[in-house]
């Protein structure tokens, strides 16, 4: 067969036109009704923070499975697009862009440390992807595109400090991790200590790779406080509790913490090392309610090797469910419509009790619990129903200033 040059050009043009349009047809069908709604997940599955991230992914998966078992959302199943951020802030930025631009997800749940949240939040703002941060943190994020479902200091630290001071005394020594979470939480601790008529003997910050707490333990002894408040984070900092006990200080000065036991410290430390440490969170695995028990059971059944299931996992599950409620109410995955629906005071009854989204702050009003380590388990002492995120509410009002977008830091 003879092909003239003109005909050949014509045919190639046709062929390439077909090739070019083909992806559009494919993409069009990808928007079809039967195709899944994509949920982005950015959680550390490896590296130092992975012990926190693993149960969170399991909880997110559980929420997705339940949504699908109930027939999906607006007639479509949901599907998780997960990236392991490897405890590396650079990976957060990279995968956040990928989720927004390549995967085009409807929502992203993720971020564990405050540093990782602040790394990805601008990306999701810029590319207009709804973002859920489901971790207890230092409070103050005021951003219409972001929902923070974990507890903030006004919900937990405010309960923890007076309870601990009542038991121990007024002179407090604060030790905290040296990054934004520890720095800001230490400010809140200082505030609540002063509010309750106490004094702060000293505040020490520790880089995350500090393993030797000898000099600090000596300093604490020299300062003779009645109580230690700890916001230490991660595996290296666990060494503090060990070295404290081995110096024979355990039982001499009580410890209350805003971070202890979020991972699996009570089970890995010896009973003598963790006994009587006080903590306050939005959730404890030991919580004795039917909803909590069935939540733990479901996760453990699907993933028998899940580490301790703390507020991180519970709030992730509830965050995903709250988002699903928003989509149901909006009848769409359009970001603006879902945000409007979420702002209408939606609530979800989950393992922690009822969590209600607050329009003004995009935080949740939720239950808080005070607990004490007894024989390597948390024993829940007291519950505080429907605690409001008052810290953030005092600085953030998205009803009045919907365009506000920053993290407020407490100042004295």
């Amino acid at each position, binding site marked *: 067969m003879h092909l003239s040059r003109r005909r050949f050009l014509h045919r190639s043009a046709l062929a390439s036109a077909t090739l070019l349009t083909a992806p559009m047809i494919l993409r069009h069908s990808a928007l079809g009704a039967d195709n899944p709604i994509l949920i982005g997940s950015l959680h550390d599955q490896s590296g130092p923070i992975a012990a926190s991230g693993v149960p969170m992914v399991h909880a997110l998966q559980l929420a997705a499975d339940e949504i699908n078992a109930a027939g999906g959302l607006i007639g479509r199943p949901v599907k998780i697009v997960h990236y392991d951020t490897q405890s590396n802030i650079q990976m957060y930025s990279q995968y956040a862009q990928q989720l927004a631009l390549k995967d085009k997800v409807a929502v992203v749940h993720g971020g564990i440390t405050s540093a990782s949240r602040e790394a990805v939040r601008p990306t999701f703002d810029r590319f207009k992807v709804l973002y859920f941060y489901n971790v207890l943190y230092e409070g103050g994020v005021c951003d219409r595109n972001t929902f923070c479902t974990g507890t903030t200091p006004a919900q937990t630290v405010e309960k923890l400090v007076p309870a601990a001071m009542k038991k121990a005394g007024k002179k407090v020594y604060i030790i905290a991790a040296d990054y934004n979470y520890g720095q800001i939480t230490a400010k809140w601790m200082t505030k609540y200590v002063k509010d309750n008529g106490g004094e702060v003997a000293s505040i020490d910050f520790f880089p995350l790779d500090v393993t030797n707490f000898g*000099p600090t333990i000596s300093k604490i002894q020299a300062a003779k406080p009645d109580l230690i408040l700890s916001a230490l984070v991660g595996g290296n900092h666990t060494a503090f509790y060990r070295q404290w006990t081995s110096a024979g200080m355990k039982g001499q000065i009580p410890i209350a913490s805003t971070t202890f036991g979020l991972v699996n410290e009570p089970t890995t430390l010896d009973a003598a090392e963790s006994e009587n440490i006080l903590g306050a969170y939005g959730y404890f695995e030991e919580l004795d309610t039917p909803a909590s028990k069935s939540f733990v059971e479901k996760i453990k059944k699907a993933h028998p090797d899940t580490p301790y299931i703390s507020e991180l996992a519970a709030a992730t599950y509830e965050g995903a469910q709250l988002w699903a409620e928003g989509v149901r109410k909006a009848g769409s995955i359009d970001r603006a419509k879902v945000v409007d629906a979420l702002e209408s005071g939606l609530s979800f009854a989950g393992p922690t009790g009822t969590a209600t989204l607050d329009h003004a702050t995009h935080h949740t009003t939720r239950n808080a619990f005070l607990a004490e380590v007894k024989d390597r388990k948390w024993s829940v002492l007291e519950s505080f129903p429907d605690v409001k995120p008052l810290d953030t509410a005092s600085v953030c009002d998205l009803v009045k200033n919907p365009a506000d977008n920053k993290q407020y830091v407490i100042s004295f």
Partner: protein
Amino acid sequence: MDIYIIVALDVINGTASLFLLCLGLAIIFGMMKIINLAHGEFIMLGAYATVISANAGVNIWIAMLVVAPLFVGLVGLVVERCLIRFLYGRLVDSMLATWGLSLLIIGIVTTIFGNTIQGVPTPLGGFSIGAYRSSYYTLFLLAMAIIMMALVYAVMRYTRFGLIARATMQNPAMANTLGVNPARVYMTTFAAGAAITGLAGGLLAPVSGVTPVMGGAYVAKAFITVVGGGAAILSGTLSAATLFGAINQIGAYLTTPVYGEVIVFTSAIILIRLLPQGISGRFFKGNL
């Protein structure tokens, strides 16, 4: 007054731990010129060997003093045979290869044991000095550092193996012509260095949180100590560990742990600027 004794114990603790952490590296880096970036992971493996065996019912002292060094020594042997022996004399290549190795070890341990924090309780108790308290474990670490120092000195100075090892490190070709097999000496030395590092990891397990990534907290300090110490294994490591251990602990006590770290790294930079050959290059020439 009591507080000075307590701070002195802190300094002893810091120095002894640093010395134990660096000794294996000093042997591998100081003698063989292999930059072992997997040093932190050898420490981590030692800690894991201790925690896993202690939790399985092995006596904690046996787990620390026998299981950890034996296991990591074995790992070192395999690593030397499969990886390091191809890289002698290639400084940069050895860095890259051992860095990859460290990532591999972290990955394997994470896969097997997960990312959770592990640990064993600290044996021995505490004691009081006036109104202050400290732990017997500090004194035990000091004793272990002294024993290891004596042991390495004795092996290097008085045994036939020590003589051959030192000769091989100084001039492998000459040693070879005298009937020594350098490959075997290298292998044994590397395994010994790994075993000592494993022992350090085992000894630190009861006072730290044991995770797959714990090695990262130690490797930088170990390197500045060994480089600051210079070529002589024992005198260099000991002097540098004493210097940096004391600076770190006293700095952290007087200021905050953040500045404690900054002061150590700053003084390391100044030290290496003033003494490019390390402390031992200037003051302990020709010593072990």
